[in-house]
């Protein structure tokens, strides 16, 4: 019975755990429940992915209302992959969250924190799983509203303005998306994605469709923080609690990229998005600017959390670059980098959270000598940094390999060179941290620093370990990404 209901249980299990967490007044109980729910969600996403890989797309009609009329959950290779990313990161971060949250958030807000965390998880999973355009917007709002709350819980007072800034930008993005969906509904009379995909091509370059496309592109680009719509992201990531930064950096922008992919390739279709409207001429330059500008800005940051936030913006540039090239190899690179960047950046932010727990600051000068006092944490940070650079045997290398390959397929030596230039910039900003942590002695007279607790080190190392493991054995990640890319470009699912 469970197998038949997997798609809905994927969403409903974290959803029902959220209000229960609110009712459990004790933070520790709420944490336990959230942990169970997130592990259950991970198990279900693994089952769903294997089901999709063996039997093809899975469909679930909510309330037994048949597809174009009722809400349909539809899982194919691309969103099964996104579901796996989101639930895996959620399941790894919750064990980490207990110590980190106890340190950073007042005790009376703990159960509310886990409620918001589960709602955010539900929303992100829901965006990925649904086959209904309006339902996608609803889930997007669930995840966004809860992430504003999560960011505002940061200990620094500036977390409030960061959350408000994100709220304004995020709301504009979501409004644009709902306007786009409304326009599509106006011309087609349907909200089901598969149905939309059938009804849109005959309309050709209908002006309403083109306007809807523009609204959806800008709305999704705001949510995924594509340069120059990225302004909200650095502050939000810098001032949010450590566990939240790790979770959002690894999942929220990835899900927004998924929205972009879904609308461009499944709903409008590659012919319309790429050939008629030549979207690549917009996406590729913006992605390249994001890579170069944001990597350069990252070099000059003294707050390492903010440095990683700018690095995230550059990594989003790589993902969008892959999408913009619109070839099977380019899309594979973009999709596989969704996973690879989630593991790497999640791990890096968790390592920073460990440092924040022990040192109380994530500024560059306070990391002096940490290579000796917190060897495991710093070594995780170094491995994550190597993956950001794209050193072989890390996942970063895999993504860049495919990206460069895609650029060379199109005889675009310039793009290939720019991707490598981005790696050079990454070497600089990663090296600054390594130099301070390993080559400088701990400041004289500073309090002794201990290694982070195991409950936080293990999750950090799980993510960092994944970013090494999947850099060696790419059969799962590249295999699924390739399958998804071929499907999005109109091949067999």
């Amino acid at each position: 019975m469970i197998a038949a209901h997997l798609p809905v249980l994927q969403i409903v299990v974290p959803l029902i755990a959220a209000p229960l967490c609110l009712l459990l007044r004790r933070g520790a109980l709420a944490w336990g429940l959230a942990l169970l729910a997130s592990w259950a969600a991970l198990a279900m996403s693994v089952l769903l992915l294997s089901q999709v890989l063996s039997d093809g797309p899975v469909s679930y009609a909510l309330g037994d209302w048949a597809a174009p009329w009722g809400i349909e959950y539809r899982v194919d290779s691309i969103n099964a992959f996104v579901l796996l990313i989101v639930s895996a990161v959620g399941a790894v971060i919750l064990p980490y969250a207990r110590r980190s949250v106890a340190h950073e958030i007042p005790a009376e807000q703990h159960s509310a924190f886990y409620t918001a965390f589960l709602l955010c998880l539900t929303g992100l999973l829901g965006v990925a799983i649904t086959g209904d355009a309006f339902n996608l917007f609803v889930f997007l709002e669930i995840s966004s509203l809860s992430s504003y709350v999560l960011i505002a819980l940061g200990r620094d007072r500036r977390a409030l303005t960061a959350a408000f800034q994100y709220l304004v930008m995020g709301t504009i993005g979501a409004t644009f998306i709902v306007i786009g969906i409304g326009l599509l509904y106006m011309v087609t009379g349907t909200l089901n994605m598969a149905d939309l995909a059938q009804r849109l091509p005959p309309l050709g370059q209908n002006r309403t469709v083109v306007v809807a496309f523009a609204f959806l592109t800008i709305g999704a680009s705001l949510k995924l923080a594509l340069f120059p719509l990225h302004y909200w992201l650095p502050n939000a990531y810098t001032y949010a609690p450590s566990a939240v930064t790790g979770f959002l950096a690894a999942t929220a922008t990835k899900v927004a990229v998924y929205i972009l992919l879904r609308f461009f390739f499944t709903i409008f279709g590659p012919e319309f998005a790429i050939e008629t409207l030549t979207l690549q001429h917009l996406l590729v330059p913006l992605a390249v600017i994001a890579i170069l500008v944001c990597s350069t800005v990252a070099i000059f940051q003294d707050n390492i959390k903010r440095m990683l936030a700018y690095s995230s913006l550059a990594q989003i540039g790589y993902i969008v670059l892959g999408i913009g090239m619109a070839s099977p190899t380019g899309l594979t690179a973009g999709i596989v980098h969704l996973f690879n960047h989630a593991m790497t950046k999640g791990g890096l932010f968790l390592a920073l959270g460990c440092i924040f727990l022990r040192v109380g600051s994530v500024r560059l000068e306070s990391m002096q000598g940490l290579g000796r006092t917190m060897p495991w944490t710093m070594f995780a940070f170094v491995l994550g940094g190597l993956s950001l650079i794209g050193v072989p045997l890390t996942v970063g290398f895999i993504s860049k390999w495919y990206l460069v390959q895609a650029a060379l397929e199109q005889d675009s030596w310039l793009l290939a060179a720019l991707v490598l230039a981005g790696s050079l910039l990454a070497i600089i900003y990663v090296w600054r941290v390594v130099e301070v942590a390993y080559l400088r002695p701990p400041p004289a007279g500073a309090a002794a620093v201990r290694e982070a607790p195991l409950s936080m080190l293990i999750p950090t190392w799980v993510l960092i370990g994944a970013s090494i493991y999947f850099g060696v054995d790419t059969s799962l990640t590249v295999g699924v990404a390739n399958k998804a890319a071929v499907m999005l470009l109109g091949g067999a699912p």
Partner: protein
Amino acid sequence: MQRHLVLRVTTKLLMPFILLFALYVQFHGDFGPGGGFQAGVIFGAGFILYALVYGIKNARLVAPDYVIRVLIAAGLLLYIGVGFAGLFLGGKFLDYNVLASDPVSGQHLGILLVELGVGVTVAATMITVFFAFAARGRDEG
């Protein structure tokens, strides 16, 4: 608001009608315009009016924070619970047909309960939002 006799008396007179109208919108939602969200807003607005005129301290006596907190969760749980009931009775999630002996009354019961869940959560959330803003910077009163 101590000296505004007209406001105090009018509020007291209107209060039962506001709450009754909220319940009407709630339970007549199956047949006419209305439903859980609208009813929840009207119900919450009744409390907010009371708090505006008689003070937050008095309103908190009627709707203490812990009760409101439980209600927020309870409404959502009722909604999801109905979904699970459909699932355990052999249908899909949120399938109302299987809730009663025949599909028509099943649909009727399902939508009634789901909308009740929406109404409870919306009313409680409205009140929480108002208290959170109005009670800022004053000691509980």
